[in-house]
C-alpha cells in the first residue's frame, strides 16, 4: 500500500492529501479521509474526457458500469493491474482449483458461458461495461474453442432471447463440461427456461430449425441457421431424458461429462444456488469470487467452499467493526481481525480509490495461513430502518428461510419493503413461492413471519411492542414474478452479468412492479 501512495503522490488527489508526506499506515489514516463514489465523480467525468493523473498514475483501461440506478449508472475506473488480477484469478486460478479438486472427472471439453460483452464507447477511447464482460472480451479469439455459445449472443448487438440460443448450442454438444456465469441467477433462470421449453428446443434440434416465435433479429437468425444442421440422433437422446421429467437431476442425464458450475452463488444468491442443486444432483459448484468493480477482494480456494480467502495483493484493506461507534474513525488491518466478527470493508486500490467505503459488511469465518477467510453478510445501504431498528439483509434472509421451513413451502425469491404509508411504519415481506400458497392461512403466515423477524432483529419486536412500528406483514406475488423482473431489466438494457437479486423494494419502479403482481387469490 505504501508503494501505492508513493506512486500516486503526483496525482491531483495525491497532492490534495499530501501523499508525499505519508510514510506509515497511521499517517495514511490520519491524512486521507474515507471516501465514497461521489467524492470521485467529478474526477471521473474528467477522466472520461481523456485527462490522466487525477486520482491514479496507473493506466486505466476500462470503466465498469455498476447497476447503481438504471438511469445513471456509476462508472468505476479499472486499472490494467486490476483487470489482470481478475483474469488471473477468475480464469487461471479458479480453473486450477477446480482441476485439482476434480482430477479426471473434468474432461476439459467445452463449456457454456453465459457472460456477455456489452460495451459502451467512451470519449477517451475506452470501453465501459461489466468487468466480467471485459474478461470475456480479452479472450475473444479463443471463445469458439472453449465455449459453445455463438458470437452473436456473446456480443449481442440487439436485445434477443439469448437463453434460447445459449441452450440450443449447449444442448447440441453432448460433451458439455461445465457452465460458467457471473451470478447463479443466470444459471438457474436458464434451467427454468429449459424446463418450460424443452419440447420446442428439442424439435428445433431435430429439424435444424429455429422456432419462429423466438425473438431474434432476422440477420442473426439467418447467420445461426447457416451453422446449424439437423441432429435427429441428439434430439432423440434429449427427448428421452426430458420425458422422464425433471425430478431426477437432469444435468447429468443430458450432459454425461458435465463436471461443475462456476458462478457467484453465496450470500444473497443462495436461494438460486439451492434451486440449482435440484438440477445438479451431486455435481459440485465453485463459488468463484467475492468482488466488486472496485477490486477483486477474495476468492474460493476450494470446490463447494463458501469461504472466500482475502487476496492480499489486490488492494489495501481496512476493516471497521460494525459495532463500533458511528463517530469513531478507527480501522483495523487484516491481522487485527477476529473470527466470527463482522466488519465493514474499506478499500484502497490501484484504480484511484483511497479508503473507499463500498458499504459491504463481511464476516471473518476462518483463516487460511495468515489470511482471513470472509463471507459477505449484507450491504449497509440495503439495510432497512424505519424507526432506527436497522434490519440487515442477513436478518431478512434468515427470517424468510425459517418461515419457509415452518410453513413447508419452497422459496423462489423474496424482498423486504419498508411500508411507511401506514403509520406507524411496518415491514412487509414480499415472497414468491414455488407453489401457490393457500390464502385462508394468511393470518397465520403473518404471525409466523412476524415471529421470525423479531427473533432475527429483536429491535423490531421491541419497537412493535412500544408502538413505534406496526406488526409485520407478508405478501405473496405470482409465479415467475422475479424472473419476469429480471427479463424486464434485460429488455431495458442491463446486462445479465450485472443483475443482482432484488432484496429491498426501494424504488418506485420496483414498488409498482412487485405490488402489481401480488397474488390476489
Amino acid at each position, binding site marked *: *500500500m*505504501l508503494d501505492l501512495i508513493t506512486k500516486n503522490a503526483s496525482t491531483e488527489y495525491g497532492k490534495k492529501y499530501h501523499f508525499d508526506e505519508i510514510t506509515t*499506515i497511521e499517517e495514511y489514516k490520519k491524512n486521507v479521509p474515507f471516501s465514497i463514489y461521489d467524492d470521485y465523480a467529478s474526477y471521473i467525468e474528467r477522466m472520461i474526457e481523456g485527462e490522466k493523473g487525477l486520482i491514479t498514475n496507473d493506466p486505466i483501461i476500462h470503466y465498469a458500469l455498476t447497476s447503481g440506478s438504471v438511469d445513471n449508472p456509476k462508472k468505476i475506473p479499472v486499472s490494467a493491474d486490476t483487470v489482470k488480477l481478475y483474469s*488471473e*484469478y477468475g*480464469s*487461471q*486460478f*479458479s*480453473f*486450477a*482449483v477446480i*482441476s*485439482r479438486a476434480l482430477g479426471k472427472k473434468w*474432461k*476439459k*471439453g*467445452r463449456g457454456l458461458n453465459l457472460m456477455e460483452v456489452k460495451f459502451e464507447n467512451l470519449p477517451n477511447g475506452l470501453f465501459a461495461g461489466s468487468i466480467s464482460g471485459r474478461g470475456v472480451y480479452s479472450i475473444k479469439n*479463443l471463445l469458439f*474453442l*472453449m465455449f459453445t455459445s455463438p458470437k452473436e449472443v456473446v456480443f449481442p448487438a440487439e436485445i434477443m432471447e439469448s437463453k434460447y440460443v445459449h441452450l440450443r448450442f449447449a444442448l447440441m454438444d453432448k460433451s458439455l463440461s461445465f457452465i460458467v456465469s457471473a451470478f447463479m441467477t443466470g444459471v438457474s433462470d436458464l434451467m427454468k427456461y429449459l424446463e418450460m421449453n424443452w419440447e420446442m428446443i428439442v424439435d428445433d434440434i431435430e429439424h435444424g430449425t429455429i422456432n419462429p416465435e423466438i425473438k431474434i433479429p432476422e440477420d442473426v437468425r439467418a447467420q445461426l441457421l447457416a451453422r446449424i444442421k439437423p441432429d435427429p440422433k441428439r434430439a432423440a437422446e434429449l427427448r428421452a431424458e426430458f420425458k422422464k421429467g425433471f425430478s431426477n437431476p437432469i444435468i447429468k442425464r443430458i450432459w454425461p461429462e458435465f463436471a461443475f458450475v462456476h458462478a457467484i452463488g453465496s450470500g444473497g444468491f443462495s436461494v438460486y444456488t439451492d434451486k440449482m442443486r435440484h438440477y445438479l444432483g451431486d455435481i459440485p459448484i465453485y463459488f468463484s469470487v467475492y468482488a466488486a468493480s472496485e477490486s477483486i477482494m477474495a476468492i474460493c*480456494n476450494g470446490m463447494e467452499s463458501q469461504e472466500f*480467502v*482475502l*487476496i*492480499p*495483493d489486490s488492494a*489495501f*484493506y481496512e476493516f471497521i467493526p460494525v459495532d463500533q461507534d458511528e463517530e469513531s474513525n478507527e480501522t483495523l*488491518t*487484516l*491481522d487485527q481481525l477476529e473470527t466470527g466478527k463482522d466488519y465493514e470493508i474499506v478499500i484502497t486500490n490501484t484504480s484511484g480509490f483511497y479508503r473507499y467505503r463500498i458499504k459491504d459488511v463481511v464476516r471473518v469465518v476462518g483463516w*487460511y*495461513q*495468515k*489470511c*482471513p477467510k470472509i463471507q459477505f453478510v449484507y450491504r449497509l445501504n440495503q439495510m432497512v430502518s424505519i424507526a432506527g431498528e436497522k434490519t440487515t439483509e442477513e436478518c431478512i434472509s434468515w427470517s424468510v428461510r425459517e418461515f419457509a421451513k415452518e410453513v413447508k413451502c419452497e422459496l423462489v425469491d423474496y424482498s423486504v419493503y419498508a411500508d411507511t404509508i401506514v403509520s406507524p411504519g411496518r415491514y412487509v415481506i414480499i415472497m414468491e413461492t414455488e407453489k401457490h400458497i393457500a390464502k385462508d392461512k394468511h393470518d397465520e403466515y403473518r404471525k409466523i413471519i412476524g415471529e421470525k423477524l423479531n427473533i432475527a432483529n429483536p429491535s423490531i419486536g421491541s419497537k412493535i411492542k412500544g408502538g413505534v412500528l406496526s406488526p409485520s406483514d407478508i405478501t405473496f406475488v405470482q409465479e415467475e414474478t422475479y424472473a419476469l423482473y429480471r427479463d424486464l431489466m434485460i429488455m431495458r438494457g442491463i446486462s445479465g452479468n450485472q443483475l443482482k437479486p432484488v432484496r429491498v423494494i426501494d424504488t418506485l419502479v420496483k414498488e409498482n412492479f412487485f405490488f402489481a403482481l401480488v397474488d390476489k387469490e
Partner: protein
Amino acid sequence: MIKIIPKLVYSLNVKKGYQKIKIFDELTKNAPEINK
C-alpha cells in the same frame, strides 16, 4: 487430432493456474505485510 486442442488449451491454462495457486499460497503466508 485437432479436437484435442481445446483440452490442451485448458490444460495450459490450468498449468498457469497451479503456478498462480503456489504464488497465492506464498502471499497468504505473509498477508499482513503484503497488504501493507
